[in-house]
């Protein structure tokens, strides 16, 4: 076939598929323009398009896969016999309760002993080989000798009418896989399961048995929180080699991430295994239990193995900040690649867990799926006029103090505040934030006197767990905070393990300075509109207490954002040097401030383009306070700039987890997807963000940015116009001009350009933004002149040059490549842009 012919077929094929199904045949007819042969060709391909949802969607080596609904399917999708009511020996089948790699599992009645049992019917192929069967029986005998409350007891192995089956203790409950929530379990809940699991494994190992396939799907938890390990020593005997690694849990079509995820490095190499392989798997399970994420994850089998073989997982506290250091160390030690560096026995591991303060026993472990230990603190309502920011501040302080308690999942302020404004009732707010308990209160201020009322509400039933009133002098503000915090912790203590007494970290002895600082942060959270007010408050705070480090971090952040697109009103050369100076001042006063490190790193990244140093500072900020959202937010920016998109995604998600309802954190995830060129994903995020906050102009701009990426210029122009109308900010106007030009509305684009040029006479307009409009208008000469200007003034946009989707038409132009090369050179250090130049 001639290439031209083939590409014609190809383009008609895709065109037809993109069209509405009802219009498909007419699209083909039109496009083929009477060429009957062509039409036949395309139509026959289209006819086979629908049946292509077949074996080809799964990797060739996948013996079996799991459907997205979670139920495993056999590869052949063979209908299974309905065995209900059938008798196996003296067991009568009651119902099917599952299908696994090992075959069907039933609930059955033992007609002699009148008890319920579980029966596993073994696939005939695996026991037909006498040698295999003998080994299997041997293993089953050993497993049946295990007698431990946390191991599912094997009663019998028998054969009836040529069908081999196992008879086991019947356990009602859920698997750990079903119980793990996306953000992980609380430390005490996970700890409770871990102790029981470790106890079970210790006993088995002492008896010379290893499990070989520890994974959440093999760990049952009964309704009263008791762990029961399934398939001891049997799992790997029964699954076909090769296929056993592929009973994918969360598989999407064509994407298999299976239990290879829990394999030890030596296991993936097929080496002989010992107890330390179970220890590795235990580490993976515990990692997932506390973070909600797999330690080694990648889109395919190959890259998952790549991860297991060569890379260390991200420390659990990076994924889920509430994971305490001692537990992180235990998990990471289990996951060491050389076996000699792991715990050498389950007994050692148990001891480490216990000395970390993890309690044992089903009474402490909870099997409930509602996060009862999660709490949201709503901003305190102000009864009298000027108590508002004080109330915000008090809530913030309480959040901070409560966050120090590692067993409590505390939802950040912005998220709670965002929902309060919607006039929802407390229980609805609780449900939206997915918390078990809400702390609500009010502040009344009269002169120097304060009256604070606080109440703790159970989200499930709206029940008041506790309430209290405090009358205090304004000067006692910190004492009041400590008192309230301690009382709340006391109230929750029965459900908490290892609760620590909170100590609030504040950095000024002057309560007024502190209140001013909180007001400043409040306004900065509403940037760009609130930035100037924020600066005024931070300045007042610093004036009252010149040694108050946090006040300077506020100033640093405010000036940094004024000089970048978030504010976009100061030239980089004016804003960033101020931002850096304030950050440095804060760090001189308090070297351990995460806020100071993050602010300095932000300026180094965007203005000085000193990537390695910025990265060091971001890491330090995250180490100092893993819960400080902006550190994750901005670190993700650095990762995008250097093309490390997977890491950026995970930082973006941490930021979102820390503050799920903050419009900035949602916006940021959208930004990540745009810069990663996952435009469809950005669009689906934008839908969610818009629903939450339709007035936030950046949402629309980013949505338009994503549309530009997919080539939908019309949609892009429409949404960007709405966003720009909402804000009138020059950055948004430049997006509009670019979209208009791309959409072919040259005259409109020129008008927008004029408007911006007129604005630039009065205030700063970034040459980068103007350059983008010229680029879209086709005036590359002017575009490059402006990009050069942006380079000269060290525009913060330029660190993303390689990834900017609006500039991808310039890729390959020697002027663009030269500019990119100069950026790379200026990046210094080991991190380079070379690997990140956009793929399209």
């Amino acid at each position, binding site marked *: 076939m001639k290439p031209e012919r*083939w590409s014609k077929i190809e383009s008609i094929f895709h065109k037809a*598929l993109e069209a509405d199904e009802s219009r498909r045949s007419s699209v083909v007819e039109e496009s083929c323009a009477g060429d009957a042969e062509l039409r036949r060709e395309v139509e026959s391909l289209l006819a*086979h398009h629908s049946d*292509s949802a077949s074996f080809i969607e799964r990797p060739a080596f996948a013996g079996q896969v799991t459907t997205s609904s979670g139920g495993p399917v056999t*590869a*052949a999708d063979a209908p299974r016999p309905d065995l209900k009511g059938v008798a196996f020996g003296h067991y009568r089948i009651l119902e099917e309760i599952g299908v696994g790699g090992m075959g069907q599992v039933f609930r059955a009645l033992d007609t002699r002993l009148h008890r319920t049992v579980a029966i596993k019917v073994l696939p005939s192929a695996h026991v037909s080989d006498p040698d295999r069967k003998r080994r299997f029986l041997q293993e089953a005998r050993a497993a049946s000798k295990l007698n431990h409350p946390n191991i599912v007891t094997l009663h019998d192995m028998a054969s009836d009418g040529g069908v081999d089956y196992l008879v086991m203790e019947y356990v009602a409950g859920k698997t750990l896989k079903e119980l793990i929530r996306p953000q992980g379990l609380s430390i005490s809940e996970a700890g409770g399961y871990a102790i029981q699991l470790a106890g079970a494994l210790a006993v088995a190992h002492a008896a010379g048995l290893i499990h070989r396939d520890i994974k959440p799907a093999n760990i049952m938890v009964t309704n009263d929180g008791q762990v029961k390990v399934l398939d001891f020593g049997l799992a790997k005997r029964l699954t076909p080699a090769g296929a056993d690694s592929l009973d994918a849990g969360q598989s999407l079509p064509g994407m298999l991430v299976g239990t290879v995820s829990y394999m030890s490095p030596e296991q993936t190499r097929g080496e002989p*295994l010992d107890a330390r392989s179970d220890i590795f798997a235990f580490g993976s399970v515990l990692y997932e239990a506390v973070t909600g994420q797999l330690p080694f994850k990648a889109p395919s*089998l190959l890259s998952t193995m790549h991860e297991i073989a060569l890379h260390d997982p991200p420390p659990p506290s990076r994924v889920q900040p509430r994971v305490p250091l001692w537990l992180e160390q235990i998990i990471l030690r289990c996951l060491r690649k050389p076996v000699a560096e792991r715990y050498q026995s389950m007994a050692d591991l148990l001891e480490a867990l216990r000395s970390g303060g993890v309690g044992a026993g089903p009474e402490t472990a909870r099997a409930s799926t509602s996060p009862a230990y999660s709490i949201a603190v709503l901003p305190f309502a102000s009864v009298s006029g000027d108590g508002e920011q004080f109330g915000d501040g008090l809530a913030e302080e309480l959040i901070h103090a409560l966050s120090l308690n590692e067993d409590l999942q505390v939802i950040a302020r912005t998220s709670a505040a965002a929902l309060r404004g919607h006039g929802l009732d407390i229980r609805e707010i609780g449900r939206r934030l997915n918390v078990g308990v809400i702390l609500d209160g009010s502040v009344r201020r009269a002169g120097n006197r304060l009256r604070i009322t606080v109440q703790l509400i159970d989200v499930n039933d709206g029940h008041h767990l506790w309430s209290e009133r405090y009358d205090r002098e304004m000067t006692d503000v910190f004492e009041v905070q400590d008192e309230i915090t301690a009382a709340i912790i006391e109230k929750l203590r029965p459900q908490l393990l290892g609760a620590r007494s909170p100590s609030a970290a504040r950095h000024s002895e002057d309560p007024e300075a502190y209140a001013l600082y909180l007001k400043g942060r409040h306004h900065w959270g509403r940037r760009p509109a609130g930035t100037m007010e924020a600066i005024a408050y931070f300045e007042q705070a610093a004036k009252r207490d010149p040694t108050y480090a946090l006040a300077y971090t506020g100033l640093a952040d405010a000036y940094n954002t004024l000089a970048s697109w978030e504010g976009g009103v100061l030239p980089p050369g004016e804003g960033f040097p101020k931002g850096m100076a304030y950050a440095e001042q804060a760090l001189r006063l308090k070297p351990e401030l995460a806020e100071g490190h993050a602010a300095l790193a932000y300026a180094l990244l965007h203005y000085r383009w000193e990537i390695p140093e910025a990265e060091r500072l971001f890491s330090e900020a995250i180490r100092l306070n893993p819960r400080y959202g902006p550190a994750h937010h901005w670190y993700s920016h650095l990762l995008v700039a250097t093309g490390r998109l997977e890491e950026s995604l995970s930082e973006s998600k941490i930021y979102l987890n820390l503050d799920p309802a903050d419009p900035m954190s949602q916006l940021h995830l959208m930004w990540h997807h745009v810069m990663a060129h996952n435009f469809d994903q950005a669009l689906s995020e934008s839908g969610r963000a818009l629903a939450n906050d339709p007035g936030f102009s950046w949402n629309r701009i980013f949505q338009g940015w994503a549309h530009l990426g997919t080539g939908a210029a019309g949609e892009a122009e429409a949404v960007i116009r709405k966003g720009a109308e909402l804000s009138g900010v020059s950055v948004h106007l430049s997006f509009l001009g670019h979209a208009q030009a791309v959409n072919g509305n040259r005259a409109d684009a020129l008008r927008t350009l004029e408007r911006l040029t007129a604005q630039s006479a009065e205030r700063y307009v970034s040459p980068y933004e103007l350059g983008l409009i010229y680029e879209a208008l086709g005036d590359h000469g002017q575009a490059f002149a402006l990009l050069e200007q942006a380079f000269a003034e060290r525009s913060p946009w330029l660190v993303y040059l390689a990834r900017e989707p609006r500039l991808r038409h310039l890729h390959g132009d020697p002027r663009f490549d030269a500019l990119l090369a100069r950026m790379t050179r200026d990046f210094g250090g080991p991190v380079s842009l070379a690997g990140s130049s956009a793929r399209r």
Partner: protein
Amino acid sequence: MDDALGHEITQLLQAWRRGDEGALDKLTPQVYRELHLLARRCMGRERDGHTLQTTALINELYLRLSDLKLIDWQNRAHFFALCARQMRRILTDQARARRSHKRGDGVQAVLLDEALVVSPQPSADLVAMDDALNELAKVDERKCQVVVMRFFGGLSVEETAEVLKVSPDTVARDWRLAKAWLMRELSEQKSDET
């Protein structure tokens, strides 16, 4: 890995990294030979009643190549491409051997499958698939590559894009057309047989 072979593989890999796409074609049989040796060695060991797993095999190969410092995370694409091609060869050869064994035409299968019991999808006729892919390659080489990466290598769309140095969109479109093309080819083969 024996040194001479290791050296040759090293050179081919380096050539490939420099952009010599032909080197990959030469590399594939070399690595296959290496796998063969490896499988035989593994057979000799007591393997806990297990046959060598697909995953184990790939990982072993992987570790060997990375031992040679040939593969770092930046060019894992090369590794993926190699593995996908290997998987195609291994699985297809195995399927052919089974077929000839069934027909009893006396061809002694000198193959990996003694040591390598991977578990291909029972529903897939891999021999027919291999033939169809060869046909597809004649029409459109890149689409054939996309199928090798996705179907035999199990790679995601993004990883495939990384290997083939095209955009994920292109891979998705190629994949869509290639599947339809192959399904048509396979159904025609089937109707020819009956």
